């Protein structure tokens, strides 16, 4: 058993088929799982696993693992790992229950089924509550999560919004500032301009004044100049004035320079301020742009988040109601197959042993009577010597008793040990089984032994006592040969006269030994009929598959759609399938399981409702059992397959109760009983269904007829379709067919065993009878040998009778075998299957040939026994 995370155990088949050994490492890929919170988590914590051993799982006893809704829909292997290695521990999909005291009941027995059913019903009662609880948990978790997310989102939203508001405010402030600055600049400029203008005006005024003064000065100078003598004072005054003007001029120019300098500075200042404003403006613009971008982003994000939130909300609504499937062993295909196989063998076991037992008893009976009769003389001697009846009888009782006990022990060791082992071995080809537990069945063993002992001892005692009635003297002489008699046929001279001598002799002899006559015929009849029944059974079993899948279900693939997929998705899938080149034709159907009731009795059925009846053409043929003709479905009536009809005793025209999977019961008339060989089906039209159950028809299964595909291609197609999201499962009829065929091959082995046993039994019967024949008629045969009959003639003398008896036996055997086969099929039939009641011509031929071969072998032995007859001894014995 795996102990560490990185260990696993596999099945033996995995090792052999993949060339692996214990100790090798494999990589296991598992799809991620979702935990309860809906998060994906890695399923395994360790992918690389070391194989530490092999196991056998009772869940997969069949070599065929059944279908899966994953991958190509087939289970190839199973593997067990430790619990530690699984991350998704809180996700359980299965719970296996072991019921208390269930081991007290044999699996699949009625008691077991009842016991399990009880528990199932109990669980069924808490089912709804638990389903709801699980659903609520999941829903609550999801809701909480969504609510949290919403809260967070809202918080984030408000945060973001306030930030945006802040930013907007800032921007606005900046805008205001810029405006203010601009207007300031403007006023300052204007002010400066006016000031400058005033200053310039003043300067101009001063200049004008100065010019005036200069001109006055110049005029004065001129005057002065014109005046020859000018007082020094005046001159001084003038110079003074000149100097003043000059000063003023300087002043003005100084002022002018000052002014232009100031102007320059002011202009520069203004320009700077303007530049700054410009910069601020640009920044503002940038800010605004960013803000709007952020705003947009934010809005998108919010919208996104809200969308997601909505999705999450929707998903919560999508959370499917948890469903508990309460299944018992009958849900395991391998188990069911195994039980059905054992049932079929058990059924065969009901019929064949009886026939075998009867024949075996007959042989033993004749052997014992013959032995006693042959020892007639010894009985006479013993009686003459003075032994009493009890003592003599006891001798033979002990002999017969010992034969019964020894034979019984041998038979039981074969019957209870070897045969079960052989059959188990054959089962091993189909199923993975543990070693068989051999059990001594006291009832069958004891009953069989007692029955055969009673028969044989009774016959022995009867014969001995019969002989003992005679006087010793009589006993010591050979039994008087049976006197001859005329036979019926001699009274019909018309026929009798036409027979030649040897034929007459043969006819007379045939009727002379009536016991042997009957025994031989019964023996050969038994042999032929058992062999025929065996072959017939094989024929029938072989015919089930072709009948079902060539005459009834001719589709290639069954595609089951997921529940609750949207109508448009469904249509899309149908369209895709329609366009798929490998698919020739599709039929849309609604399939559901149901139950047909007739009074108390019920049978599980599959209800198939095609969207339109025409779609079933070339997909499923609905043929009437009696007329074998294709029928069309009637309004408000259903077609029921014939095995179910037979089991429930329903005929066409009867009214039955049909229950659908939701346990709605409706009464409906059966219009036709239709041909079918595997499982039970009910067919009805869409309209009928809608009317009966007052629900709308909804396609859930699509059946397809494909073009000719190889097995691989068919598998590939199935995988392709399986990958589509709308599809729940795809099953290929071809692979289903193989499974059933495998199952049937098992039955074939059983049939072979039967045929071989029947043949051997027949051989023993015939050989025994041939010996009886010779020993009873030894004097007669010796006589004709003395008369000079050649060996061949002696042989013919006897064999003619054997041949005639064989022919009669074979003819009767074929007739009896036909009915035996019919009877066996009726009793052996598994409820789910309809065995076609056919026996191929070749099987009749086989039955005849095998019987003839055995007869020939026996006759060859007879020929040599006849040749060995010692005439002298045989004729002398009288003295």
């Amino acid at each position, binding site marked *: 058993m795996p102990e560490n995370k990185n260990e696993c155990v596999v099945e033996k088949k995995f090792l052999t088929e993949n060339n692996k050994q214990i100790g090798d490492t494999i990589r296991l890929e598992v799809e991620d799982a979702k935990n309860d919170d809906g998060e994906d988590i890695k399923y395994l914590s360790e992918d690389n696993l070391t194989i530490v051993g092999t196991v056998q799982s009772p869940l997969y006893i069949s070599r065929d693992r059944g279908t899966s809704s994953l991958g190509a829909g087939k289970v190839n292997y199973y593997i067990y790992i430790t619990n530690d290695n699984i991350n998704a521990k809180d996700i359980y999909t299965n719970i296996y229950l072991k019921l208390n005291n269930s081991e007290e009941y044999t699996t699949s027995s009625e008691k077991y089924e009842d016991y399990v059913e009880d528990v199932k019903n109990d669980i069924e009662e808490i089912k709804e509550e638990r389903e709801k609880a699980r659903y609520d948990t999941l829903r609550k978790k999801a809701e909480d999560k969504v609510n949290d997310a919403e809260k967070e989102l809202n918080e984030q939203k408000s945060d973001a919004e306030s930030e945006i508001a802040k930013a907007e405010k800032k921007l606005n402030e900046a805008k205001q500032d810029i405006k203010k600055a601009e207007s300031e600049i403007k006023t300052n400029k204007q002010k400066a301009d006016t000031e400058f203008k005033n200053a310039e005006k003043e300067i101009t005024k001063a200049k004008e004044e100065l010019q005036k003064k200069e001109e006055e000065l110049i005029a004065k100078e001129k005057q002065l100049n014109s005046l020859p003598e000018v007082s020094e004072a005046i001159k001084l005054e003038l110079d003074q004035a000149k100097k003043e003007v000059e000063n003023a001029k300087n002043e003005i120019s100084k002022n002018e320079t000052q002014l232009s300098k100031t102007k320059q500075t002011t202009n520069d200042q203004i320009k700077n301020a303007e530049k700054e404003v410009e910069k601020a403006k640009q920044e503002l613009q940038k800010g605004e742009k960013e803000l709007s971008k952020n705003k947009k982003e934010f809005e998108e994000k919010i919208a996104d988040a809200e969308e997601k939130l909505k999705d999450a909300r929707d998903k919560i609504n999508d959370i499917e109601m948890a469903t508990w499937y309460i299944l018992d062993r009958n849900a395991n295909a391998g188990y069911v197959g195994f039980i059905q196989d054992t049932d079929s063998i058990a059924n065969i076991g009901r019929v064949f042993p009886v026939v075998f037992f009867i024949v075996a008893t007959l042989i033993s009976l004749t052997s014992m009577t013959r032995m006693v009769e042959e020892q007639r003389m010894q009985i006479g001697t013993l009686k003459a010597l003075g032994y009493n009846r009890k003592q003599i009888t006891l001798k033979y009782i002990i002999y017969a008793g010992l034969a019964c006990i020894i034979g019984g022990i041998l038979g039981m060791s074969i019957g209870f040990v070897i045969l079960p082992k052989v059959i188990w071995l054959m089962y091993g080809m189909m199923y993975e089984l543990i070693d068989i537990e051999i059990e001594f069945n006291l009832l069958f063993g004891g009953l069989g032994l007692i029955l055969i002992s009673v028969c044989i001892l009774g016959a022995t005692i009867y014969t001995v006592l019969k002989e003992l009635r005679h006087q010793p003297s009589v006993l010591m002489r050979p039994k008087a040969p049976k006197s001859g*008699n005329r036979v019926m046929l001699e009274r019909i001279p018309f026929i009798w006269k036409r027979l030649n*001598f040897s034929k007459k002799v043969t006819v007379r002899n045939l009727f002379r030994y009536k016991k042997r006559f009957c025994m031989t015929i019964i023996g050969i009849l038994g042999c032929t009929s058992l062999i025929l029944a065996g072959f017939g059974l094989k024929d029938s079993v072989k015919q089930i598959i072709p009948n079902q899948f060539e005459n009834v279900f001719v589709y290639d693939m069954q595609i089951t759609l997921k529940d609750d997929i949207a109508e448009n998705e469904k249509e899309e899938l149908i369209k895709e399938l329609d366009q798929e080149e490998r698919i020739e034709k599709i039929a849309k159907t609604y399939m559901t399981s149901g139950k047909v009731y007739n009074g108390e009795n019920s049978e599980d059925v599959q209800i198939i409702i095609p969207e339109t009846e025409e779609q079933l053409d070339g997909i499923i043929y609905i043929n009437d059992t009696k007329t074998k003709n294709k029928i069309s479905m009637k309004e408000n009536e259903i077609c029921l397959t014939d095995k179910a009809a037979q089991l429930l005793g329903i005929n066409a025209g009867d009214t039955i109760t049909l229950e659908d999977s939701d346990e709605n019961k409706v009464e409906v008339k059966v219009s036709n009983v239709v041909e079918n060989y595997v499982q039970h089906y009910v067919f009805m039209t869409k309209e009928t269904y809608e009317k009966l159950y007052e629900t709308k028809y909804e396609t859930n299964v699509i059946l397809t007829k494909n073009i000719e595909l190889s097995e691989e291609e068919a598998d590939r197609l199935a995988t392709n379709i399986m990958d589509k999201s709308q599809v729940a499962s795809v099953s290929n009829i071809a692979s289903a067919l193989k499974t059933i065929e495998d199952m049937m091959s098992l039955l074939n082995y059983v049939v072979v065993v039967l045929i071989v046993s029947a043949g051997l039994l027949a051989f023993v019967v015939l050989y025994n009878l041939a010996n009886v024949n010779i020993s009873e008629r030894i004097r007669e045969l010796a006589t004709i040998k003395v008369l*000079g009959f050649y060996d061949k003639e002696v042989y013919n003398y006897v064999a003619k009778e054997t041949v005639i008896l064989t022919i009669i036996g074979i003819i009767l055997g074929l007739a009896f075998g036909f009915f035996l086969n019919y009877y066996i099929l009726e009793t052996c039939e598994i409820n789910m299957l309809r065995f076609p009641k056919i026996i191929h011509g070749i099987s009749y031929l086989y039955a005849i040939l095998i019987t003839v071969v055995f007869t020939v072998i026996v006759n060859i032995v007879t020929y040599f026994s006849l040749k060995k007859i010692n005439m002298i001894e045989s004729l002398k014995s009288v003295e």
Partner: protein
Amino acid sequence: MSYIEFENVNKQYKMGEITIDALSKTNFQIEKGELVVIVGPSGAGKTTALNILGGMDTATSGKVIVDGKDVTTLKGKELIKYRREDIGFVFQFYNLVQNLTAKENVELATQICKDSLDPDKVLEKVGLKDRKNNFPSQLSGGEQQRVAIARAIAKNPKLLLCDEPTGALDYKTGKQILKLLQNTCRKGNITVLIITHNTAIAPMADKIIYFKNGKAEKIEINQNPTPVEEIEW
């Protein structure tokens, strides 16, 4: 050369570890058409000699010549053929086929022989004309033995071998049977051998062979055979 010659015939039976000499150097001759009676105590080898002569048994050594044919050299089918064509047997207990009528018992023999006689005529000869459609169980012992003789002679054999033919019959019937055999020999010119332990009937024969301890101890030739009617015992 005689019609039948027994020359130094030995017959040994092995019973486990003991070897029994049934015949040791037996010699005798029989001429064609003779009626021979072989007498001797039980265990003297009479029957063995008869069986060898009749092709039912083979000699261990020695020669048995019948009509110039060495019977000892015959094997398998030839021996059967010899029995079939040359020999007629009559037994003490008749050995009739119970399931066949008197006539059918005769037919059983005639249908396999080439030169067979007509069964009806033979039955008439043995005096069973009216009983030919009866089954053996409906016939008396003597009648049954007569059917057996009829069956044997109907084959038209060279040799009629009778092993104690009167052993199971009363005196009167026995006499009738012996008469029949004598007549058969005389009228039918068939060589007849009769084995008996009753020496009294020896005078009816042409030749009497006395057996003792596996040997033909004494051979007497009777020139004047007595008719059966005159023999009493």
